[in-house]
């Protein structure tokens, strides 16, 4: 008899096919489920496993009410600030994420946002879609050259290091801030800053790659933005919660920051529409990992975690371990 699976949101075709082949599966075509809908379908389907994502939050009270036949909740994505991991541990529910498989793709997108913000891609594209037909003088609409500028990376994990590798191709000196200094073979010449404030002061472009959650709420706050050099650039592909958006709007509006590239926001998808009124931002709808290859790999990795737990092994990407 096949194990029983609930898929709480739409997944790619290849992932859906594997879910149907290996499980008695109920697949949602929606974007995610609230707690009531989730508890309902997991219970009525007598699910052994749950495949879900950040649009289906597993808060403490939701975890407490999940039926005991559910053995694993495997999340698609690397961030897990939508999961109360401590509650999962208390209730002995295995939970997992999908690290590694999206690093390259998110790093590519980070460089895209850096280039787009520095080289004014939104303004340039808007000119074209309006039909162009105007000549520019030599000092019209000048952007910032990316090559040779100092890149500051907040959070030098796998994605941060993949960003550094790409930035080196542009001859960019790299600085980073991390709780702990990395060993030299992982620094690859990048300079460590003991504080985020020091990093903000010394870099020209700040890329944010920290995890979300209460511990990092608004770590890029008004004071950090104020310490950034006049004319510098902020890029965020990690979590909207990391940045004080009111302070960022002011810094972009005043010209203290030259530009920003944003893939993530507080309250997605109902983000602060004041960003859409600014010319000096490049906006993206949380698509850092949005390639066919990566979205397939993320779903497959989540299913690998489910297979392991249902076979009596530990999830390879378990978020808590005994």
């Amino acid at each position, binding site marked *: 008899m096949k194990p029983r699976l609930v898929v709480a*949101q*739409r*997944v*790619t075709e290849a*992932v859906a096919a594997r879910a149907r082949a290996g499980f008695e599966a109920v697949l949602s075509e929606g*974007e*995610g489920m609230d707690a009531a809908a989730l508890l309902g379908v997991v219970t009525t389907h007598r699910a052994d496993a749950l495949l879900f*994502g*950040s*649009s289906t939050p597993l808060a403490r009270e939701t975890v407490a009410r999940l039926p005991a036949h559910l053995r694993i909740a495997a999340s*698609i994505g690397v961030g897990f600030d939508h999961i109360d991991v401590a509650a999962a541990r208390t209730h002995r529910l295995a939970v997992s994420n999908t690290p590694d498989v999206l690093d*390259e*793709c998110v790093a*590519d*997108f980070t*460089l*895209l946002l850096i*280039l*787009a913000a520095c*080289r004014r*891609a*939104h303004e*340039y594209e808007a*000119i*074209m879609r309006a*039909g*162009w*037909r*105007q*000549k*520019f003088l*030599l*000092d019209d*609409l*000048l*952007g*910032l*050259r990316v*090559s*040779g500028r100092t890149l500051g990376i907040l959070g030098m994990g796998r994605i941060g290091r993949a960003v550094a*590798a*790409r930035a080196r*191709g*542009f001859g960019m000196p790299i600085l980073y801030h991390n709780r702990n200094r990395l060993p030299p073979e992982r620094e690859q010449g990048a300079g460590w800053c003991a504080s985020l404030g020091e990093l903000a002061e010394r870099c020209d472009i700040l890329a944010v790659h920290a995890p979300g959650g209460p511990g990092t709420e608004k770590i890029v706050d008004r004071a950090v933005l104020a310490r950034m050099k006049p004319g510098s650039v902020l890029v965020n592909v990690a979590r909207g919660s990391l940045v004080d958006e009111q302070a960022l709007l002011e810094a972009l509006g005043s010209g203290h920051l030259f530009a920003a590239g944003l893939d993530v926001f507080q309250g*997605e*998808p109902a*983000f602060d529409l004041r960003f*859409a009124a600014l010319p000096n931002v*490049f*906006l*993206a*709808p949380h*698509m850092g990992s*949005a*390639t*066919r*290859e990566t*979205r397939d790999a*993320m*779903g497959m990795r989540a299913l690998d975690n489910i297979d392991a737990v249902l076979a009596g092994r530990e999830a390879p990407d378990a978020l808590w371990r005994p």
Partner: protein
Amino acid sequence: MSGDRPVLFVTRRLPAAVEARAARDYAARLNPADRKLAAAEILAGAEGAAAILCCPADRLDAALIAALPASLRVIATFSVGTDHIDLAAAAARGLAVCNTPDVLSVATAEIAMLLLLAAARRAGEGERLVRAGRWSGWAPTQLVGRGVSGRRLGILGMGRIGRELAAMARGFGMEIHYRNRSRLPAALAAGAIFHEDEDTFLAASEFLSLNAPGGAGTRQWLNAARIARLPRGAVVVNTGRGTSVEDAALAAALASGHLAAAGLDVYDGEPVVFPGYLGLENVVLLPHLGSATAETRDAMGFRALDGIDAVLAGRPPEFAVA
């Protein structure tokens, strides 16, 4: 005071750093209002001058050059192109003419990399969706693009810009293929794979970047037949010359899905753009601002001043066209 220093006539307003250096080293006559000067005004400004720093909008034809004062020794232009200067007339008078090649390479390669990433990752579509306030939620299947890391990049024209682009793309783990009049020495190729044969080059190019010069040899080079030989789902980027592309064929391949996406900075007949592009979501369009960074514009001015410095010091200028 200025009696000791040679007179330099600058025809148009230039970046502040360039004007500052001009004023430091020469008795500089500037045009702070940036008014376009008539021939008589250029002649008046050049009276007693040893050097002129001009721009592409100035017309230095044979009659004007013949009327320039005997004190004049060098004309430097703030541009790569010299179509606006009658080089034969300058040579006949023994005037040196200098231009500013090469300094645009990095900024233009950045625009090629930006277009490559933005086209592959559907950033134009994402930007428009978010900015219009139409973002409804996150789904694993939304705006799924093409991965860049580890893919093959074919570069047509492996000059300075092509090689700068190759260096950037290597940071993304891309495998570089190229076509060029001749095979590069190993030190310049840096591992890039030369194709003697056009068919193997096109077949290898999952991403194709056009960095070839204009002229009869590349006129409408990317036509329907060559597009058909690119792998299905390929991405095309053009930062070279608009005339290298047969617009109707490229637009048709983008609409049919044979090509996944394209990114364009140059156009045949610009600033008018082939209307077939404007309705397409899978093309990223920029208004020929490949060199539009403050650093690049400064560097162009400094290179022009380097040429003037050399001629007036009796040395051969590094970048002379006459």
